[in-house]
């Protein structure tokens, strides 16, 4: 059972593209060579190589019998002879079958299974060229092969045999390359068995897990956890060696946010924390080499960091020469969006909107207005121009340093939050209001000029803005009637509704039919919606609930068939004694009880108690009575039930056990 090794040698691949590329390669390989079995397919990578290994392949795929359809007998002797000749046989050896159109010749051909070596050589070039990357380039000239970066060598071995093929002028072989600096300058001969060891001897650790472990050894004693950074470094290095560096304590006077951002985003260093939670004047960097015998690498990195921190300090000092409040007019020169004008215009809109929301939610209007006025001014500072990811945070820090109130500075600091579904929402009500106003404005304005996300295209991250709004309203339980704010932008309503549904399903974990049921009943505020869906969720497992939901579905269908959209209340005098009167009495009682109940759960429990009455009604009573007046009245009774008790949720949306797939 032969083993297979593929190494695609590439110039440095962007770290974040490597894992998806490996997954894609794995999938394409498995699909293409399914006939060859194999006990395992594994992939691994460094920045300069994508590696795939398949164990215990079948050397020769089994033969398969294929039936080749020939001409009908009615087509005559000539056609039959032609077919036979093409099949390398004679007419008398052909079989005949009968299908709908008559009797025809068929030829049974044994299709020889391909040898693995042959199939690999044939299919690998396409598989490799088709690996999906977010962005590709050509390098051999116009019309040439496209790949993430130039392919410089290929190793393709089936046991000790080279699988020959060529991509962009590069022939596959059994020669790999070591670490750019530490490895052998000449290509390195490998076999499947020596591959990993030969590379290790040339300072390449093929296994990403092993590189990760090497880095993790240094991530102790206060080093801040950062999985994303760790992964980046795993795929930026072939032979990672971490070291701990330090910086002058005097830089600690700069805010932690700024120092960490410089270290993380610009230098790819891990921050180190003191036991008391403050920043330590240290960092952990990861090199792509084996050692730093003269300390030059550490000194170099420390010097770069010092320069970066000096920049930050310089920006801080220069920025303080002009207060945020004096920068509002400068926002005229900062583009919000080409079609939508400047941040000055946006600021004015956000202020107005924020005032409305502040009034509606009882937030401190002065604080909200001041924060909304200053929220975007940090875009004109050198600090944010340099460290764009610190927008908001810098504004908040500067506001505080310039004597704005805590309420204002915190609201500014937080107003981009939440930046993801996992991130925290603004800490204060005023911050929440400014964030809502900012995001709502962005959505309304973009939708107004038809910049509406489609498919994967969402250049203005409008989905994220919408999700942010939804998350704030739910998490902070803000009783804001969202519909009022999207009323003038019709396309925005379904867009927001989708985000709400997604939030309830993905972030809160409710079943889709529970969400559908409450959404179908409509909503004014999101906290109310959240309470209703939670009530449904908790009442659902009780005995009466799902059967009642099934009955409601039945009622809905009956009314639909009767085309009864509106109805007067039922006339009690027309109701027959027994199950019909009984249901009506239950209806009156439950209606009173639900009106009196304080929480949705209780209301739902009351509604669920209708079940035996409804069951009995359907069991004993024929709605379609020959007397039209009675029929009408029964429909009216059902209609009352449905409308009265569907305000919390449309129970007919609940998928009951009988229906489930």
């Amino acid at each position, binding site marked *: 059972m032969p083993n297979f090794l593929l190494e695609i040698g590439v*110039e*440095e691949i*962007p*770290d974040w593209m490597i894992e998806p590329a490996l997954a894609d390669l794995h999938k394409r390989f498995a699909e293409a060579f399914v006939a060859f079995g194999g006990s395992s397919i594994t992939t691994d990578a460094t*920045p300069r190589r994508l590696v795939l290994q398949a164990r215990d392949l079948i050397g020769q795929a089994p033969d398969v019998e294929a039936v080749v359809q020939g001409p009908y007998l009615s087509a005559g002797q000539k056609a039959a002879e032609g077919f036979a000749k093409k099949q390398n046989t004679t007419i008398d050896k052909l079989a005949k079958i009968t299908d709908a159109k008559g009797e025809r010749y068929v030829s049974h051909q044994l299709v020889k299974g391909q040898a693995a070596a042959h199939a690999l050589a044939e299919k690998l070039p396409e598989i490799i060229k088709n690996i999906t990357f977010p*962005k590709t*380039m*050509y*390098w*051999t*000239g*116009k019309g*040439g092969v496209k790949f993430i*970066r*130039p392919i*410089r060598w290929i190793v393709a071995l089936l046991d000790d045999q080279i699988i020959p093929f060529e991509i962009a002028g590069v022939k596959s072989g059994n020669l790999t390359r070591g670490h*750019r*600096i*530490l490895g052998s300058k000449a290509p390195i001969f490998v076999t499947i068995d020596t591959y990993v060891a030969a590379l290790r001897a040339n300072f390449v650790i093929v296994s990403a897990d092993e590189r990760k472990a090497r880095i993790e050894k240094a991530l102790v004693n206060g080093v801040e956890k950062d999985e994303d950074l760790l992964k980046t470094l795993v795929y*930026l*290095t072939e032979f990672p060696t971490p070291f701990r560096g330090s910086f002058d304590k005097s830089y600690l006077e700069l805010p932690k946010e700024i120092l960490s951002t410089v270290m993380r985003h610009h*230098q790819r260093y891990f921050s180190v924390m003191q036991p008391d939670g403050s920043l330590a004047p240290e960092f952990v*960097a990861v*090199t*792509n*080499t084996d050692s*730093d*015998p*003269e300390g*030059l*690498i550490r*000194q*170099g*990195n420390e*010097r*770069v*960091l*010092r*320069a970066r921190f*000096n*920049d930050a300090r*310089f920006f801080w000092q220069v920025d303080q020469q002009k207060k945020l409040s004096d920068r509002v007019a400068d926002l*005229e*020169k*900062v*583009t*919000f969006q*080409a079609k939508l*004008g*400047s941040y000055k215009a946006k600021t004015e809109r956000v202020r107005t909107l924020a005032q409305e929301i502040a009034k509606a939610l009882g937030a401190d209007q002065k604080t909200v207005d001041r924060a909304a006025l200053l929220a975007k001014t940090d875009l004109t500072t050198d600090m944010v121009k340099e460290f764009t990811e610190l927008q908001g945070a810098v504004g908040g820090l500067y506001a505080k340093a310039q004597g704005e109130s805590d309420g204002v500075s915190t609201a500014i600091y937080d107003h981009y939050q939440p930046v993801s579904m996992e991130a925290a929402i603004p800490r204060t009500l005023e911050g929440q209001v400014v964030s809502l106003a900012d995001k709502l404005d962005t959505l309304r304005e973009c939708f107004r000029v038809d910049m509406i996300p489609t498919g994967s295209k969402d250049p203005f991250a409008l989905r994220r803005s919408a999700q942010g709004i939804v998350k704030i309203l739910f998490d902070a339980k803000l009783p804001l009637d969202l519909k009022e704010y999207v009323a003038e932008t019709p396309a925005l309503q379904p867009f927001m509704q989708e985000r709400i549904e997604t939030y309830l399903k993905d972030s809160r974990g409710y079943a889709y039919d529970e969400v559908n049921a409450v959404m179908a009943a409509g909503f004014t505020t999101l906290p109310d919606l959240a309470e209703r869906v939670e009530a449904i969720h908790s009442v659902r497992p009780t005995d009466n609930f799902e059967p009642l939901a099934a009955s409601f579905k039945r009622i809905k269908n009956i009314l639909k068939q009767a085309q009864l959209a509106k109805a007067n209340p039922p006339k009690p005098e027309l109701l027959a004694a027994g199950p019909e009167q009984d249901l009506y009495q239950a209806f009156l009682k439950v209606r009173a009880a639900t009106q009196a109940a304080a929480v949705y759960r209780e209301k739902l429990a009351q509604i669920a108690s209708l079940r035996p009455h409804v069951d009995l009604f359907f069991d004993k009573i024929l709605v379609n009575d020959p007397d039209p007046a009675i029929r009408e009245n029964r429909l009216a009774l059902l209609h009352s039930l449905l409308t009265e008790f569907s305000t919390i949720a449309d129970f007919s949306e609940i998928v009951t056990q009988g229906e489930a797939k």
Partner: protein
Amino acid sequence: MDSFQDTVFKLKHYWADRGAIIQEPHDLEVGAGTMAPETFLRVLGPKPYKVAYVQPSRRPADGRYGENPNRLYKHQQLQVILKPTPDDVLEQYLGSLEAIGIDLRKHDIKFEEDNWEAPTLGAWGIGWQVMLDGLEITQFTYFQQCGGIDLDLVPAEITYGLERIVAFLQNVNSVYDIEWAPGFKYSDVRLADEQQFSVYNFEMADVDMLWKEFELHEKECQRLLDLFRAKKGDYVRFPVLPAYDQALKCSNIFNLLDSRGAISVTERVGVIGRVRKLAVGVASAWAKQQAPPAEEKVVA
């Protein structure tokens, strides 16, 4: 220790030894070495080319009155174009670092994704920023498109940030402390530049005059491009290169107006579009001039 100019000499020698023409900078204000015709125009078309030159690059908005140790209104780029890209281009590049005295075995080199795009030039490429002990020292780009035209041969563009590299080599914390030549610091040579141009660019440049100038150069460039388009045959002597200079003037004036805060948000996109139109027009004229359509072949 090598002076600033020693390092420049060594890099030029290194690339000259590998077949590059050593050019002098383009004698107009440009924002980057890429904009010099030795890059912007030479990368177009099917003719191989290898060139290296230092290009003083002006970015008016980056000026800091000579007060910031690492930011400059005008910095020096050493620009290398290898067209087509040799297969061992990265090895050659690493060799150039060794040539200026960086012992790579004692340092840490990483290639981090950094794609390049210049909307005003209709140009983009794929590449990396090269990090040496955490310091970005080079921008490496495989050009894909220029002037909106897919490139026939893919050139590698290597742009060394000379101030940064030399500050690293000389172990100084401010670019102004770099020794340019024995006895002369960077500040002796360039500080006045930074101070005076910062004042001019941010505070004193005459906005009305700049707008007028922009329009004049734009008009002249467009006039030439229109004439070229109307031409049938005999492209060789047509002044496409002067047309490009006019486009470069516009680009620099745009940057000046921008640093002067004279371009409003609504105007901005439009003005960028106007510069782009000129650059793209010149690129297509140049491409046609280099490889005229068969039926219009001119007598050599």
